């Protein structure tokens, strides 16, 4: 209890000076090895079919906002980021997972949001406090889908 409060206070103080945290109450801890996160966040493999939906759903992943993907039934693919066709031939599963979780770990200036981070933000809207854009299951589903793009 006391420890909890102490931790909470630390997070608030740290957040106000702009530090980032890899994990807290809402997200599970993960370990970065080289340029990737080798272990699944859920301990299981994701569902590629569900992940395809995460990729185009505007309320969840909305990858299409910035990336071109082989999802022909959806109109208007963005061109802010690279075309993700063949992404699984360019990167390993671990590398893809880290880029979805927090691509700023690779490139601190990127426009790409960290999809699995829940603290360290500036002027966060109240309804998002303590939340990450995607849940661990959605990240794993998305990673499974991206791994099909050979």
């Amino acid at each position: 209890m006391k420890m909890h409060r102490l931790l909470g206070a630390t997070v608030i103080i740290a957040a106000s000076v702009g530090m980032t945290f890899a994990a807290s109450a809402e997200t599970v801890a993960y370990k970065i090895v080289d340029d990737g996160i080798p272990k699944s966040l859920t301990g299981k493999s994701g569902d590629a079919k569900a992940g395809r939906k995460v990729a185009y759903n505007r309320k969840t992943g909305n990858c299409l906002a910035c990336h071109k993907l082989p999802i022909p039934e959806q109109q208007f693919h963005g061109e802010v980021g690279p075309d993700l066709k063949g992404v699984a031939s360019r990167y390993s599963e671990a590398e893809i997972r880290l880029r979805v979780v927090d691509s700023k770990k690779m490139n601190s200036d990127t426009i790409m949001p960290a999809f699995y981070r829940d603290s360290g933000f500036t002027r966060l809207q109240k309804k998002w406090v303590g939340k990450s854009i995607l849940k661990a299951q959605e990240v794993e589903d998305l990673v499974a889908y991206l791994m099909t793009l050979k």
Partner: protein
Amino acid sequence: MKIRQLLLALTGTIAVAGLGLGFVVSQTTSAKAEGIRSGYTYATKETQGLQDDEMSNPGYLWVDTGEDLWSKAEGDAGKSCNDCHGDAADSMKKAGVSYPKYKDDIGKMQNIEQRINQCRTDNMKAKAWKWESNQLLSMTTYVRNQSTGMPVSVAVDGPAKPFFEKGKAFFNQRRGLLDMACKHCHEDNAGNLIRANVLSQGQINGFPVYRLKWGKVGSSHRRFRGCNKQVRAKPFKNGSDEYVNLELYVAWRGRGLPVETPAVRN
């Protein structure tokens, strides 16, 4: 007599339009050389056409309302804008290019909306208009419309310097759950498609702007709020110091662009 007046007015309009066009073209060319582009250049032909034709540009409804309000006496002093400033075409010609401006009496920056309201409370002894009210939007649009075609030129040195720096810091500060700064879209990715929309440079030379999505004219601060909410960040209030400083920085980014008020955007 009437016909002659009409003809004269028409000839005048055509001449002015011709001059304006020449000006706009040369402005755009020089701006292009510097890489500064108005949102107009990212708009579709249809939207551009809507803006270009005063008769079809819906923003002119607000210009017209502003013109009516200009001569309307209000407040305990019984004065109208016109009583002190006369013809807005002369007295307001430069207002649209130079705001926000540093004001000694308040020790900070002031934008056109705030200048209008200060005139109302201090000189007219009238109530300040609410932000984003039809009246304040109309008067701001009318005043800024007097500068249409003139290059944006705000002072960012001297006493304005610290406020300019704050605006610049705001522009480059990541915010919200999407953790993006203005610059990630409007500097690094201007011209790229984000889903179905082309990202512009985020220039404000056309504000207050008639936005098709809004179905009405709106201020740059309303647009800032929309952008902030889109990245899931808490927006600031319209007229806040934060947004006035940002407005100064963004106006400076578009220095040299012609004022287009009321521009039409999607």
